[in-house]
């Protein structure tokens, strides 16, 4: 009996061992896992108006101009989103509005986090998912929703719902050559209460590349 025959015999001896779990049970549990993992949804009821335009005020500390520049100061702040490096080395990203993905992507890259940011709801097709370590994503990024006040000096009524998406990123947990993909977008639904814009967001780890993360 050669090695192949031996291994074939071992394999053959397991033919009676079969999974007893019906696929329906897996699907049900999978939906629960997905619901638990899905980012909290930000829903804005608009009074019959689809896609109300929000006035954006850009706040730049220290006269720092917008655009893809390294973060020479620990904090870069825009009305649309805020990126803050925290004392423990994590990076806190607060997303108030889906705007300027290139700016956010550049800022994160300058802080050592290769990132692909898309706001169309579609992922960048050039990105290749990083699946070598299924548990890694939970160590790299923690998404939550936080209740915040709008930036001071914002004129008029509060254009925000009071809830914003917050990502806490642990750059030290990212292996070399791996980045973060952040794909978010709005979908609309009409109910008796009006038009609802629902923001859904997908986070994935991806292989960093010029086409995907720009580096």
């Amino acid at each position, binding site marked *: 009996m050669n090695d192949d025959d031996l291994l074939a015999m*071992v394999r053959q001896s397991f033919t009676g*061992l079969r999974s007893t779990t019906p696929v329906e049970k897996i699907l049900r*549990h999978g939906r629960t896992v997905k619901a638990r993992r899905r980012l909290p949804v930000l829903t804005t009821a608009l009074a019959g108006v689809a896609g109300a335009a929000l006035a954006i005020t850009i706040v730049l500390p220290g006269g720092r101009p917008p655009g893809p520049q390294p973060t020479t100061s620990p904090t870069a702040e825009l009305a649309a989103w805020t990126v803050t490096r925290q004392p423990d080395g994590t990076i806190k990203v607060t997303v108030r509005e889906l705007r300027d993905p290139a700016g956010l992507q550049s800022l994160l890259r300058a802080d050592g986090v290769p990132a692909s940011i898309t706001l169309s709801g579609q992922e960048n097709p050039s990105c290749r998912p990083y699946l070598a370590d299924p548990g890694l994503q939970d160590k790299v990024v923690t998404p939550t929703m936080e209740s915040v006040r709008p930036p001071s000096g914002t004129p008029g009524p509060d254009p925000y719902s009071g809830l914003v998406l917050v990502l806490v990123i642990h750059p030290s947990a990212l292996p070399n050559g791996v980045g973060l993909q952040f794909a978010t977008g709005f979908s609309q639904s009409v109910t008796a209460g009006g038009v609802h814009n629902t923001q859904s967001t997908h986070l994935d780890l991806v292989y960093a590349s010029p086409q995907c993360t720009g580096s």
Partner: protein
Amino acid sequence: MGSQQRDFAEFYRESCDDCLRTVVVSVGNRDTAQDLVDEAFARAFASWRTVSRHPAPAAWVVRTALNANISRWRRRRREVPVPDPGLLADPAAVVDPAAVEGAAAGLVEPRIMAALLRLPARQRQVVALRLFLDLDTGRTAEVLGIAPSTVKAHLARAVTALRDLIPTPHEEIPS
């Protein structure tokens, strides 16, 4: 049923048995393996959009199941006294003898199962991934997070050991 759900259901039906066999050999406990594999498949469905693009989705399921087993072991270690520190130095080496009997009873030939469970944990994992998922050396190395040369060494040693541990038909003494 949506197309994604149909795709996943087909993947599940095609691979659930081999994933279960791989994890049974790795953890030595049929019930634990079934729980781990079910959870891993549920996670695969929850992330099916990305997992389906993995070159070997079944390998992703097994890796997720084995990672979950290590997490379970770490939780257990905090909760109960450790009877055998030498054995528990390797989380994957934890083998429940009662469950081994369960795995063997009427489902797997007892002499084969017993031989597999006498192999070191890493050798069992390498053999199981090769046998049931038909993974090549590179993919096996990726799943287990070890070097391809280490995979080859483990497989060679495992086959040699199995040859000694499993009597081939002409070696068995007629009764």
